[in-house]
């Protein structure tokens, strides 16, 4: 897990997009085994 900037927060259970909103999601792929992740 990166040391993320402070504006990143855990997502709520339900999410909805409003007009004039942009949602950016962060996800780490690093928990997948390296040998598999680089196939």
């Amino acid at each position, binding site marked *: 897990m990166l040391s993320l900037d402070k504006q990143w927060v855990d997502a709520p259970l339900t999410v909805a997009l409003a007009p004039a909103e942009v949602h950016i999601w962060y996800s780490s*792929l690093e928990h997948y085994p390296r040998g598999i992740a680089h196939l």
Partner: protein
Amino acid sequence: MHFTVGRGKLRTLLGRYLAIPPEQVQFAYEAHGKPYLQGPQHKIHFNVSHSHGVALYAFVLDRAIGVDLERIQTLPNMVSIVDRFFSVQEQKSFHALPADQQTAAFFAAWTRKEAYLKACGDGLSTPLSQFEVTFAPGDATKIITIAGSTHGINEWSLQDIALSSEYKAAFVVKGKEQWVVRHWISG
């Protein structure tokens, strides 16, 4: 495998917006391979980027959007990439920077340019040198010209995404609204 894992996560996130199981999310593809949602789901536009174990997913309603993410790293051929792919003015701006600022500036430029291309859906069919972005430290983040003109630059919003000191990221979305950007961590 990163592609497969990333696409699975994309289905999951889209399923959360659409309140449907991930397997019911239906993709179609534009001519240059950019995926979009089919049928009644089509109002949500999205784009994905991943680099070195990190993925970013961008979502917006009814607008084209592109996102790009790159880990900052030393590239032995960075200067040749700049000289080959950047506009003449961008090359001058890049070479005028102190050497210790060039790597971060390069990835700022690259992510901003890639995000614009991805928003357009053109892939790399539009040469990177045909539009210009700011990238020098302290300069406001913006598109400067498109096809040699300032005409059309106000049709797009370009913003950096502050992720961590190790990465540069940016998104471009169609329209000049006062965008409210929410940054979610996906569990």
